[in-house]
């Protein structure tokens, strides 16, 4: 249904222009679901349907390099669907995704990971049988090269690589205050800690962009504060661009550079926290749900 827009975009991106030039053209052609600053990630008119259910309808926004962008919205608004589309788990029915200027709409999840996008999941998604350290080591997967034979012989370079990456993992473990749980099996930890391990695993990938799907759901105040601090640290110290999907409004308003609001699969508002808070459509969406 967006055939024409698609072929337009093809022409533009095939010649690999500088991003900002592209962005200007884009703004002229379709003001509704494009944004215009130099983005690390651009989603264009993303739609997604399962069978007859439309989970996302023409959602598009930019994520600017280095920002914390929050996606909020009532339950079932399509937030997690959007995260799944960005991380390559769902192929959008229509629309396109650009990461660092390159079209990666059709990329597989592992290709997306290789581009430098990591994420956490709304429901716990740890590797249950592995220890905390091993879980985070899996996050180092793309930074390691050891293959079948080197791994089986475990000598020389393979051993050095393993040591080097374990050292990096220990840094993350310390950063997240997980040291006393290092060798515990992941599924024996309390919920809040598991969430933290999952964050650690995604940080271990040293991603350019990190998608956090409700990292603070089910946490008490103290745990939330810890988590917020870690997220901000990751953003500031590690220079990671962050997409945050979160229900807790006070957290969102505190740390987001910008906010995108989804409702019933559509984007109903976008802007800085204050603008969004006063947006009528947003108020209606939230009040409508409460009422």
């Amino acid at each position, binding site marked *: 249904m967006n055939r024409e827009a698609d072929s337009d975009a093809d022409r533009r991106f095939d010649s690999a222009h500088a991003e900002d030039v592209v962005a200007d053209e884009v703004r002229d052609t379709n003001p509704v679901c494009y944004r215009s600053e130099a983005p690390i990630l651009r989603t264009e008119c993303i739609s997604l349907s399962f*069978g007859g259910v439309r989970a996302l309808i023409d959602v598009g926004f930019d994520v600017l390099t280095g920002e914390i962008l929050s996606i909020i919205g009532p339950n079932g608004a399509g937030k*997690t669907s959007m995260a799944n589309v960005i991380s390559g*788990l769902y192929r959008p029915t229509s629309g396109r995704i650009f990461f660092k200027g390159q079209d990666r709409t059709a990329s597989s999840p592992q290709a997306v990971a290789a581009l430098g996008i990591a994420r956490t*999941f709304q429901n716990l998604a740890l590797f249950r049988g592995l220890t905390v350290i091993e879980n985070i080591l899996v996050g180092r997967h793309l930074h390691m090269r050891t293959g079948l034979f080197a791994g089986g012989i475990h000598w020389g370079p393979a051993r050095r690589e393993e040591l080097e990456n374990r050292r990096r993992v220990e840094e993350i473990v310390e950063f997240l205050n997980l040291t006393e749980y290092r060798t515990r099996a992941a599924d024996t930890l309390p919920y809040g800690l598991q969430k933290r391990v999952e964050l650690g695993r995604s940080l271990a990938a040293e991603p350019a962009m990190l998608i956090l799907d409700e990292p603070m759901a089910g946490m008490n105040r103290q745990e939330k504060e810890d988590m917020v601090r870690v997220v901000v640290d990751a953003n500031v110290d590690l220079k990671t661009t962050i997409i945050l999907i979160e229900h807790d409004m006070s957290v969102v308003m505190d740390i987001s550079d910008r906010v995108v609001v989804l409702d019933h699969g559509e984007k109903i508002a976008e802007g800085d926290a204050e603008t969004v808070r006063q947006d009528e459509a947003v108020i209606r969406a939230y009040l409508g749900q409460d009422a």
Partner: protein
Amino acid sequence: MNDLIYGIELTITGLLIGSMYSMVALGFVLIFKASSVFNFAQGAMTLFAALTLVGLIPLAGFWVALLLTVAVMCGVAVFAERAIFRPLVGAEPLVIFVATLGLAFILEGSAQISWGTQPHGLKLGLPVEPLMIGGVFVSMPDFISALAAAFFVVLLVLFFHKTRIGLGLRAIADDHVAAQSMGIQLRKVWTIVWVLAGIVALAAGMLWGARIGVHFAMSLIALKALPVLIIGGIESIPGAIVAGLIVGVAEALGEGFIGPLVGGGVQDIMAYLVALLFLMFRPYGLFGEEMIERV
């Protein structure tokens, strides 16, 4: 022309045999829908039932033996449900599957300890003169077996769709928790499902026993219900029926036309070949639905 008639005869034979596959596969589908158990032991249960029956016939006569065997199969069903599957409720499907592997070994071993490993004949006293329909030969025993199998298939489908218990089973298949909250007792239903599986095994054991004798290979034949299931789509009742017929025909045609070229035995692997093709190109079978994985 000769080839054509031969082909038609093979197709008919295939359909007749296929109806028995349909019946066994249907037994699988019912268990799977109601309890998510993928029952590898169905083949062993078939062997167990048939061996028990032929073992008891000389001691008690056919009808008493049949009744006793039904009782034994009910006992096996209750035992399996109580001792093996109830403690494993909530385990992963693959764990439960492996438990059915264990059950298969238990049943095969104990049946052969009790009744010996020699092949036994099973005579049901069916007429043997072939039917002649428009120049095409049809084996009478196969025809009667197919009728019986078709009868069973209809019975199972009616049971599943019309009776209270059947409706309960379907409710469970749709949603375990909801069914429980509606007051459907899972455990009772599971026991019933296993009894049903035992009866299907007995029926299959009788029909096949009359055709090829009662011996170990029988459990391998009943095992073909697994590829049949894949072809039909694991949860689909019409799928199991249609796929059973397809496998029967594919086996008969394969054995008839390809068998002589490769030294026979094509029917042993035909079901698996067809299932592999489906797994490669249409993994969720003829009537199955691809599940969308929610993240």
